[in-house]
């Protein structure tokens, strides 16, 4: 019994040490990236290329998923409230659900899979094939060449994609509710405007900005920390997606509490 207790304590102890060491290394990694900002000539062209890749490459999937989310939200609202509440409530609920929650969170989760996995796999492969060491050996900063352009591209493009997701989600919700319920355009826009606060749009973008930071930094950090060949790259990629997804949900809760004062 005593041996089992010791084993559990050791496991917990190792886990805590491992977590603390990762937090320390991530902090150092982030500071290194901030220092890399000084080399504008290095990261600017690379950031533009990354931003183009993220933006254009993710546009279709983000628009598709947010359209379905908007349509389903509208249809379920219609199903639940038909006969009990006025139809314009559909407009209120679709806009609020999409802008406050579904748009930023779904976009972030999709991009954690798409961009996070890509960053971790790319940088992980560069680590195990010594390309990152090669960059350092040439007296060049891996932070300004590899991390800064990726993080900045994410910080610009993920909020932009969230705005597009919000718009397509609302549009899809509007169209689908018109097809199945006797809701007029006037009802929908009246409902959408009745409870609309401009702060909601800011809240959506601010959230997506934090999500972008967590996706890009965690994925780059995981990629840089890769060890042991192809298996290590696989572990880093999975780790990047899982960790950034959990962090997105955690940040979602914390930011809702802080920004909406609930």
């Amino acid at each position, binding site marked *: 019994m005593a041996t089992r207790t010791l084993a559990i304590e050791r496991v917990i102890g190792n886990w805590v040490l491992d977590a603390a060491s990762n937090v320390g290394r991530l902090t150092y990694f982030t500071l290194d990236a901030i220092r890399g900002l000084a080399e504008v000539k290095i990261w600017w062209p690379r950031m533009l290329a990354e931003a183009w890749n993220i933006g254009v490459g993710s546009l279709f999937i983000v628009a598709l998923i947010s359209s379905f989310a908007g349509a389903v939200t509208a249809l379920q609202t219609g199903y639940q409230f038909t006969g009990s509440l006025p139809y314009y409530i559909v407009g209120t609920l679709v806009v609020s659900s999409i802008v406050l929650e579904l748009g930023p969170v779904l976009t972030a989760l999709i991009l954690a899979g798409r961009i996070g996995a890509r960053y971790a796999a790319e940088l992980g492969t560069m680590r195990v094939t010594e390309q990152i060491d*090669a960059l350092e050996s040439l*007296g060049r900063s891996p932070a300004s060449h590899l991390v800064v352009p990726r993080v900045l591209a994410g910080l610009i493009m993920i909020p932009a994609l969230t705005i597009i997701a919000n718009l397509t989600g609302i549009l899809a919700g509007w169209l689908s509710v018109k097809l199945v319920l006797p809701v007029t355009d006037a009802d929908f826009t009246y409902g959408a405007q009745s409870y609309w606060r401009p702060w909601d749009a800011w809240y959506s973008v601010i959230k997506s900005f934090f999500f972008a930071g967590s996706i890009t930094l965690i994925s780059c950090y995981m990629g840089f920390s890769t060890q042991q060949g192809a298996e290590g790259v696989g572990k880093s990629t999975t780790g990047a997606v899982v960790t950034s997804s959990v962090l997105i949900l955690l940040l979602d809760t914390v930011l809702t509490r802080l920004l909406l004062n609930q």
Partner: protein
Amino acid sequence: MIQLRGVKKRFGSQIVLDGVDFDVQEGETVALMGPSGTGKSVLLKHVIGLIKPDAGTILVDERDVSHLKRRELAEFRSHIGYVFQNGALFDSMDVSENIRLGISDEDRYNDLTYVRDRVKQCLALVNLQPDVALKYPAELSGGMRKRVGIARAIAGQPKYLLYDEPTSGLDPVNADIIDSLVQRLAAELGVTSVMVTHDVRGAFRVAHRLALLTSGKIVMQGTPQEFLVSQHPQVKEFLERDFDNPSFAA
């Protein structure tokens, strides 16, 4: 001049370097030999500051590498060319861009005319045609990738060249080409070279001096002749395998 004194390094419970003393004089080519997995590459990475020692000092031109600050380390590395085992070329860039990254002087790096000429010169030095500049690493053979790795390492006109297993994974013909290249670059560019290898034949052909690393320590440093007459049991054991190989005599 490169001087390592009492360098120790461990990864977890595994002791890789256990008090290494190692010297390289200016202008000479030294081959660091040893069986696979004895820490030769780890030792070489200490010289350029990619790995920090747990104990001991690494002096390059009397500068203590493990205590250099970030900017000092970047400046220090501009005097050293490092050739990685598998080339470590950047997949997303063509050969020309790879070599360009080796140009350490920022003004020259941004001067496209200089870059074009320097890429051509470096490719010529490693016996590659100028049209290779437009190819991507995935389009090159193993031997060509190693030569492009060398071209990138010499692009910044370094004082020291560190080769990590430059002939591993190559057939004997290509290995001979790389060995000749190491010899020729040392003579033509006047660089001080350290070559990590487990290829005894190549080491005897290329190096002025040899060093043998086993069990985390340098067990012997000396000229090829001194190695041939050495009675040290580990030296004899390491060399005997290759002496029995008929290709050694050739």
